[in-house]
């Protein structure tokens, strides 16, 4: 019944390198046997998939510029940037030199030896029967990126991967895949950036990212969803941490018609640690759904997760934060906080912390709140002459600014602060115009 992807899958099959063909066939089998979830499926209770009920074509090669309408990609100094447009690699838009200690292979270009190495890691963090959209990703797997950071390499320069979508006559789909292997004791920064140039273009991106951290590795990971309004994105990030590995993963989603991101962090070795921070900002009729799952399988690991959302207009959001502490995971410390701000009476958030704890010697704290702007803070700002609209803007931005402040990469933090403060200021100005308060 999943024929809406048929054309794209046939096209992917025709363009796949030989070594990925078995992978595709297997994925396609799982995809075609699977059933599209409905509202009765617990994991999809608050996220409907009606917008997927249309045919999606394979993406055409698009002539896109990075400075094109609506696309703003941060300049990160001496970092390396790899750009895909409509799923096709675009060397002329890419920039910088790969830093020492980093190797990058595109699946389409892989030598037999490289293909063999990719196959020994690909899918190991996902679990092959995990989810239907990862099956779809396997089924359409013709291109992807394998990024490897050598053991003991200390890579200062950020590695930036940009997936752009442009426009074409029909709705189209992009299959995104990233595999990152951080060697033992290595340090690196990886930024995943999704954006679109045409706000009305219907696109469906189905992404899978795997982050494998070997013993003592440390990864700063950023995932920015800045796609156009008509974009559909179903994506997942799977991180697996070996002993004493540390991941710092930051997520930002501006809204679009449908975004569903699943994040799984698997503490597989003792002493591993994760920091996960995220911000989601749907408005209009947009919908954003974050499902996160922190797996604690082994003792002495820590996790700290903070997500905040501002839901405006008639937008809807879902946050499902699961912490799963297995019987052997004694001495685990896990924290989860999710705070939401609703700025209209029609805005909706479904937030659910989900704790499953099977070990007895653990510390686990969680909390979820839904609120409106603080009346007293609003009043305080107004007593200093600040207009209601400006005060709302400042408080809304302040609410997420606390999370943006955790971004360690300074140029990226400044980029995000500018991007978001401008967005809030624009919204504030629009609100003033509506109320007739706009300044000349």
């Amino acid at each position, binding site marked *: 019944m999943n024929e809406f992807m048929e054309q794209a899958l046939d096209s992917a099959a025709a363009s796949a390198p030989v070594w990925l063909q078995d992978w595709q066939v297997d994925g396609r089998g799982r995809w075609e046997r699977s059933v599209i979830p409905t509202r009765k499926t617990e994991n999809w209770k608050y996220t409907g998939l009606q917008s997927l009920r249309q045919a999606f074509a394979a993406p055409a090669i698009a002539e896109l510029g990075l400075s094109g309408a609506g696309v703003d990609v941060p300049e990160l100094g001496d970092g390396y940037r790899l750009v895909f447009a409509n799923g096709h690699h675009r060397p002329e838009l890419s920039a910088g030199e790969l830093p020492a200690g980093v190797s990058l292979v595109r699946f389409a270009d892989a030598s037999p030896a490289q293909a063999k190495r990719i196959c020994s890691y690909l899918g190991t963090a996902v679990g092959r029967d995990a989810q239907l959209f990862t099956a779809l990703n396997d089924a359409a797997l013709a291109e992807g990126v394998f990024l490897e950071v050598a053991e003991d390499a200390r890579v200062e320069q950020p590695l930036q991967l940009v997936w752009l979508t442009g426009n074409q006559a029909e709705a189209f789909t992009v299959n995104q895949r990233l595999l990152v292997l951080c060697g033992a004791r290595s340090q690196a920064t990886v930024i995943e950036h999704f954006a679109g140039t045409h706000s009305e273009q219907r696109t469906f991106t189905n992404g899978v990212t795997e982050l494998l951290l070997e013993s003592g590795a440390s990864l700063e990971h950023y995932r920015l969803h800045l796609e156009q309004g008509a974009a559909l994105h179903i994506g997942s990030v799977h991180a697996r941490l070996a002993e004493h590995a540390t991941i710092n993963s930051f997520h930002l989603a501006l809204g679009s018609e449908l975004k569903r991101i699943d994040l799984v962090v698997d503490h597989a070795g003792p002493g591993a640690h994760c920091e996960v921070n995220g911000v989601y900002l749907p408005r209009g009729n947009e919908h954003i759904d974050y499902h996160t799952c922190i797996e604690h399988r082994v003792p002495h690991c820590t996790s700290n997760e903070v997500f905040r959302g501002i839901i405006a207009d008639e937008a809807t959001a879902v946050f499902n934060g699961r912490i799963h502490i297995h019987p052997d995971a004694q001495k685990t410390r896990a924290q989860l906080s999710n705070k939401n701000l609703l700025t209209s009476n029609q805005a909706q958030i479904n937030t659910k912390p989900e704790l499953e704890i099977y070990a007895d010697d653990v510390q686990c704290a969680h909390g979820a709140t839904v609120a409106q702007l*603080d*009346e*007293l*803070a609003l*009043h*305080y*700002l*107004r*007593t*200093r*002459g*600040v*207009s*209601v609209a*400006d*005060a709302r803007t*400042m*408080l809304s*931005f*302040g*609410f*997420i*600014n*606390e999370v943006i*402040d955790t971004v360690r990469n300074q140029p990226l933090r400044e980029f995000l602060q500018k991007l978001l403060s401008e967005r809030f200021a624009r919204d504030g100005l629009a609100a003033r115009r509506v109320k007739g308060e706009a*300044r000349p």
Partner: protein
Amino acid sequence: MLKIDNLHASVDGKDILKGLTLTVKAGEVHAIMGPNGSGKSTLGHVLAGRPGYTVTAGTVEFLGQDLFALETEERARLGLFLAFQYPVEIPGVSNMEFMKAAVDAVREQRGEPALDAVSFMKLARQTSALVDLDPAFLKRGVNEGFSGGEKKRNELMQMMLLEPRLAILDETDSGLDIDALQVVAKGVNSMRSPERGFVLVTHYQRLLEFIEPDHVHVLADGRIARSGDKSLALELEARGYSWLEDEVA
């Protein structure tokens, strides 16, 4: 400049102000004293338009305008300033950004051009030095993690930046040590001018040793029970408030 006539106000359905009348002229410093629960803080909140404070009777004129016809921010832009007894903490909004927005709004009202970011930063640094506040606090969230004294200095700094026509200081002296008290007094005294009025709401006479008031009023049970000059403050210090409350009752 401020004319309060027979003001009645309630909070949560409870009458707090019960016929308060007070006139403040430009250039004057008024001290309002009184026991706990007499309505001192309520007066400041009502004048600033705090939600939850309902005016049930009476009028207030500020610079010739009906104060209650104005929104909170319009009152502020016109030159009314309230230093809060308990300043609000706003994490995520930087003190500097907040003060810039406030100064921009007030300057626009006065027909003055907005200060550019560099000039404002310079001005803010100079002002923070005047109130003895580490300029590092400019970058922090508004009042976020400030000590009681630091919050009061931050209020004072806002007052100095906004240059109001009338400043109401709601127990700005409470909880301050003698050094901080002198910083507050110095700030107020430096701003005294024939165009500007002050209302100092205070529980203790101590502040008035450093800021000499023109008039002292005692508030009891929601109205002014007695007015006088600074000697009234000394009398209160010596005799306490109870004899006045007895008189009112």
